C-alpha cells in the first residue's frame, strides 16, 4: 500500500471523531449569528477546533476581533512544540513541509508521531492523514451549519468520547512497551489536571504546553530503559 493510502486510512478514525464535533460547531455558529458560509469558511481556513468554538463564543459576546485573534494565537502556540517534533521526522523539503504544516492538529500530530519505530514520516503519508481529517472537519461544519434547523442541537452529546478513546488506543501500545513513556504520559495527565484545578482561568492551550514541557523534561532526566527489557534493538524487528 502506498504511503498516501496508509495516511488516509490512519486519518479515518480522526475524521469520524471530528465529524460530530464539527456538526455541533456548525449548528452553534449559525445560532450565534454566523452565516453557514462564514462557519464553513472558518473551518476551511482555520482548522482548529477549540479556537473556533471559543471564537464563535466571543463573537456572540461582541468581543473585539483583535482580542479573538490574540486568544486564538495563544491557544495554538502549542503547535510550535508539535511542529518542531514533527519537523525532525518529516522527510520532505522546506516548502512542502511548510505547506503540510497547515494540517497539524493535536490529533494528526499524535497519530503521525506516536509510533516510535516509524522514525521517518513521509510527506505523502502526512498529506493523506491530514487531508482525511480536514475533510471530516470541513464536511461536518458544512452539514451542521447548512442543516442546523433539522439537526437536534444535542445530537452529539457524549460523542466527543470518540476522540478520547482514539487517544487512549494510540497511547496504550507505547505504554506497554516502555515504562518511561508510561511515566511521561501519566505525569502529563496528572499535571494538566492539577493545573486546570489550580488555575481554571488558564486556557487549554497553555495547560497542554506547560504539562508537556514538564513531563517531557522529567522523562528526559529519567534513567534509560534497561537493555534486557527491550531485547529488540535493531531497526525493523
Amino acid at each position, binding site marked *: 500500500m502506498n504511503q498516501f493510502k496508509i495516511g488516509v486510512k490512519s486519518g479515518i478514525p480522526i475524521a469520524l471523531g471530528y465529524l460530530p464535533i464539527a456538526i455541533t460547531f456548525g449548528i452553534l455558529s449559525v445560532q450565534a449569528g454566523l452565516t453557514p458560509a462564514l462557519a464553513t469558511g472558518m473551518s476551511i481556513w482555520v482548522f482548529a477546533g477549540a479556537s473556533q468554538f471559543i471564537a464563535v463564543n466571543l463573537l456572540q459576546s461582541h468581543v473585539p476581533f483583535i482580542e479573538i485573534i490574540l486568544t486564538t494565537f495563544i491557544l495554538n502556540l*502549542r503547535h510550535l512544540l508539535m511542529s518542531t517534533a514533527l519537523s525532525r521526522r518529516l522527510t520532505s523539503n522546506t516548502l512542502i513541509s*511548510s505547506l503540510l504544516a497547515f494540517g497539524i492538529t493535536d490529533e494528526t500530530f499524535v497519530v503521525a508521531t506516536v509510533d516510535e519505530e516509524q522514525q521517518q514520516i513521509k510527506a505523502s503519508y502526512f498529506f493523506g492523514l491530514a487531508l482525511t481529517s480536514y475533510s471530516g472537519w470541513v464536511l461536518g461544519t458544512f452539514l451542521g451549519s447548512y442543516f442546523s434547523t433539522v439537526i437536534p442541537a444535542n445530537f452529539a452529546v457524549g460523542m466527543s468520547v470518540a476522540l478520547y478513546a482514539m487517544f487512549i488506543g494510540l497511547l496504550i501500545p507505547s505504554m506497554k512497551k516502555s515504562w518511561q513513556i508510561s511515566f511521561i504520559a501519566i505525569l502529563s495527565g496528572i499535571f494538566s*489536571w492539577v493545573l486546570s484545578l489550580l488555575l481554571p482561568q488558564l486556557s487549554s492551550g497553555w495547560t497542554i504546553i506547560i504539562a508537556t514541557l514538564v513531563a517531557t523534561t522529567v522523562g528526559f532526566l529519567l534513567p534509560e530503559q534497561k537493555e534486557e527489557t527491550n531485547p529488540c534493538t535493531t531497526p525493523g524487528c
Partner: protein
Amino acid sequence: MHNTWLLIFGMFIVTFIPRMLPMLIKNIRFPNGLNKWLSYIPYAVLGALIFPGIMGAHPESASYGIIAGIVAILLAWFQKQLLLVVAGSLVTMFILQTLSI
C-alpha cells in the same frame, strides 16, 4: 457581517504561523539530547489531552467519560484495532446515557 471574513483571515494567520515556523528550521541539526526530548512530546501531549478532558466528555456526569475511558484502555490493552477501541467506548457511552446511571 462581511467583515467577519477579516476575523477568519486573522485567525488563519495566527494558527498557521505556529504550525509552519518550525518547518523553516527543519534542516538545522539539533543535539541528540534535544531530539530525544522532542521524541517524548507525543506521549506527554496524549496524556494532557486525555486527562482531565475525558471527564468532560459528557456534560451530565464525569463518571460517564471515565467509565468509557476504562473500556477503551481494556480494549486497547488486548488488541490493536483503533476503530474497535473507539466503537467500544462509544457504545459504552450510549448505554450509560440511555440508562442515565
